[in-house]
């Protein structure tokens, strides 16, 4: 501990790690945005009193390292398959608070069918996608959300319209489906965007609790390792590249998508 300016007795601790975080050490890269998103999810679960009935359905990606440090029940699914597992869980345990935690490669590449059908049916769980425009865990390969011009190991020189086609704007796609009640896109690259993420997650969770239908939050996260930039350049790269293709905001907020 580096404490040259130690807290004085009249100070109160105003910020601490989340109660539901079992350990601060994790294997994710310096400057990764995913742990920031995790913090927000755990804070909200605690605040809303959901811990005892939470079932998180985790996909496969770098964030697969999170379940072991989250003090909630986690059902680990296969790559792309969290929405169907979440469907089964929420259907048999409608009082549980069920949310998926997936990456863009997991949800938008491998598992696009699953999330689309879950949204169309209005399944009452919350899907959360951590979108960094790349398959991080395998070492930097293109996904359906890799943006034009983005260099990855499978789009060497940059994603190219002719060879690789267009990225998918998953939030806008999901919002078109009638069963989707709340759809929002946020980011964790600046303090104000982190605050927005927290708000959108909160509103999505409330959407589930109110039984309104399928709720969805896309969170743009930094991946300096597989963007091939230094960690401190992550937020700037996100702003200049990812955010340009994927604008932030609430895309859909509808009462009674499930009647």
């Amino acid at each position: 501990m580096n404490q040259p300016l130690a807290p004085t007795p009249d100070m109160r601790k105003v910020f601490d790690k989340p109660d539901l975080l079992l350990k601060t050490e994790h294997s994710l890269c310096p400057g990764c945005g995913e742990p920031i998103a995790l913090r927000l999810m755990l804070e909200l679960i605690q605040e809303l009193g959901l811990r005892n009935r939470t079932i998180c359905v985790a996909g496969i990606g770098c964030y697969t390292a999170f379940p072991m440090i989250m003090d909630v029940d986690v059902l680990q699914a296969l790559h792309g398959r969290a929405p169907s597992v979440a469907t089964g869980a929420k259907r048999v345990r409608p009082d549980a608070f069920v949310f998926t935690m997936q990456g863009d490669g997991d949800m938008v590449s491998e598992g696009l069918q699953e999330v689309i059908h879950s949204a169309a049916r209005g399944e009452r769980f919350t899907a959360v996608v951590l979108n960094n425009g790349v398959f991080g865990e395998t070492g930097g390969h293109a996904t359906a959300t890799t943006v034009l011009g983005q260099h990855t190991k499978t789009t060497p020189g940059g994603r190219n319209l002719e060879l690789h086609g267009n990225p998918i704007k998953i939030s806008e796609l999901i919002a078109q489906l009638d069963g989707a009640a709340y759809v929002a896109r946020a980011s964790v690259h600046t303090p104000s965007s982190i605050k927005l993420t927290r708000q959108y997650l909160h509103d999505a969770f409330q959407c589930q609790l109110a039984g309104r239908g399928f709720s969805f939050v896309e969170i743009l996260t930094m991946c300096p390792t597989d963007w091939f930039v230094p960690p401190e350049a992550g937020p700037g790269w996100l702003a200049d590249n990812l955010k340009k293709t994927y604008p932030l905001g609430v895309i859909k907020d509808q009462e009674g998508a499930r009647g």
Partner: protein
Amino acid sequence: MSRRVLMEGSCAMAEGALQVGCRFYAGYPITPSTEILEYMAVRMPQVGGVCMNAESEIEAIGMVWGAAGCGVRSMIASTGQGISLMQESFAELANAQIPIVAVNMCRGQGDYFQATRGGGHGDYRFIVLAPASAQEAVDLIQEAFYLADKWRNPVLIMGDFLLAHTSELVEFRPSDELELPPKTWATTGAQGRRGITLSPLGPSEKLSTDLASALGKVTEKHPAIRAAEVRVDSGWVDDADLVVIAFGFPGRFVKYAVRLAREQGLRVGYVRPISLWPFPSAAIAEAAARAKALAVFELNAGQMIEDVQLAALGRVPLHAIGGISQDHSGFGVGPALTVENILGRIRDVYPRAAA
């Protein structure tokens, strides 16, 4: 109260499942399993359960994974092609030790390898049971839920087109299964305890990195399952010169053909494996020890015959008397599946003259 009703095999199996507490079904229409999905779509809501017609077999097994992972008895049915699609999830939910009951209403009998060797990756095994009548299918599917929960291991029932679509009298007997411990491994919300992770990738305890022992648990139970869960039916083997081995509905045809052969003075017996995994190797070995020849009747290019070969260890000649046999529908009820044909093949390979 038990009573006998006339039901199609598919519907009888579905009803049997409901009566032992199956409360989640997911499936995708595919012949000849579709009637199970149809039956569940009507009956599940009536018993307070959930039936999902998923967007593909891949999502269907995902939904079953989710429901079963939360501790609810769950089931899925398909045919070989659909079972192929489910293999990744099959292999991995077996690694997570999530109990499910799956049904393959096969087209023919060409899915033996898929079922017993595991069409997916890794060292998992499914317990595989093959009924030869609607009543046996009801009994086995009810037992399947018990076995799945007892061993925390998936169980597969091998049916076929005939089982699916033949109406027979079935009786739903009250369950006499033993008590099982509560499913403390299931994700139900961490009330009063630390959270758990139910995962094919590692241990359920948070903060633990002991992958080896977590995955070891999956295969450690295989010898115990092999010892405890063999099921087999046999007849006329004590003095048989030729023993015919067959499974499923074709096994019922074989039994009839063997009876006719006996009436015609041939010393023939049969062994009908009911558990395909664990395979009744001991019964086959015993038959090989006493008979002069073995014959395998199966509607495929030769799959179970390999397990018979392993069990018999070359003690006596082994004949393949089945084969792929289809009609124009492709559902596996072809010209080979008649008593006349089977009896003819038995006569072809019956060991003649002095030993």
